[in-house]
């Protein structure tokens, strides 16, 4: 009996890593699953189980909790002009093309190891095409490529054309290489500029299941 109480306490400690809202909703339920999966007389969480919990707790905290799931998605490649291709390779985005992926719930932007953001669709306040002339401040230089960051604004591009500006209604934590940073505005270069804007615009968001045969 004391074995299982100790085990439960240790699982609880691991679950404490998850965001509070998720824990409130799921802690009891996950605990039940973990305890059901425990072996007779087991005192400590298995290494694999513990690592798995820590990993997903971290992912959820960073807002990256995609869990490797790809469903119902539309992908918009980030455009890369010829001179920037080697740069993309350096960013680890050569094989896995830099892209914006959209599911009914999430907008996911990735450029290799250099940039990753996972944003709830409700958090997208607006999206519009941006001309190069409008790039102000540190982004004025039209030669900038790759991942550039200025407080709360990120430029993630492989070209200086087809730019789309995405504004969020809140600050969102994103990953810049090994670091995290807050972001409110994101500028990407899209191969399909108007398509991306249309897909991102909150007014065109359909309720899931309506009219889309893929659903």
């Amino acid at each position: 009996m004391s074995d299982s109480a100790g085990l439960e306490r240790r699982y609880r400690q691991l679950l404490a890593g998850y965001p509070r809202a998720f824990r409130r909703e799921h802690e009891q339920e996950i605990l039940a699953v973990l305890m059901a999966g425990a072996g007779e007389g087991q005192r400590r969480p298995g290494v694999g189980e513990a690592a798995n919990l820590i990993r997903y707790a971290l992912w959820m905290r960073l807002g990256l909790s995609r869990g490797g799931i790809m469903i119902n998605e539309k992908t918009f490649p980030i455009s890369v002009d010829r001179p920037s291709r080697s740069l993309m390779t350096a960013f680890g985005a050569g094989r896995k093309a830099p892209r914006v992926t959209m599911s009914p719930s999430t907008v996911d932007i990735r450029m290799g190891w250099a940039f990753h953001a996972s944003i709830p669709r409700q958090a997208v306040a607006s999206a519009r095409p941006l001309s190069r002339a409008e790039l102000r401040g540190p982004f004025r230089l039209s030669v900038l490529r790759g991942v550039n960051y200025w407080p709360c604004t990120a430029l993630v591009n492989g070209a200086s054309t087809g730019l789309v500006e995405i504004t969020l209604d809140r600050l969102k934590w994103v990953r810049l290489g090994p670091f995290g940073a807050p972001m409110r505005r994101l500028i990407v270069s899209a191969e399909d500029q108007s398509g991306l804007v249309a897909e991102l615009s909150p007014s065109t968001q359909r309720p899931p299941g309506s009219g889309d045969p893929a659903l």
Partner: protein
Amino acid sequence: MQEATFLILTALAAGSQHGYGIITDVQAISAGRVQLKAGTLYAALERLRADKLVEVDREEIVDSRLRRYYRLTAAGAELLAAEAARLQANARVAMSRLTPATGVLT
């Protein structure tokens, strides 16, 4: 679609199940090859719920522990059917090319 997602949806296709039920069922469906961990399962369920492919069916308390049962939504069933058809079509082509002499599809 990743295999784990496919197997979770498949586990729910025959009826609602709770978390541990899904884990054991996925293991059975995959002949022991895929052993879902709790962290993976709940990250997947969270995502599937957000995309309205899976929903909570009911909750029960068993041995003073919470069991939440999940079920497929109509959209989830449709997506699983489409994915299964795609896999089947691919498999059929693979099998037919591996037996070019007979062309027999088993």
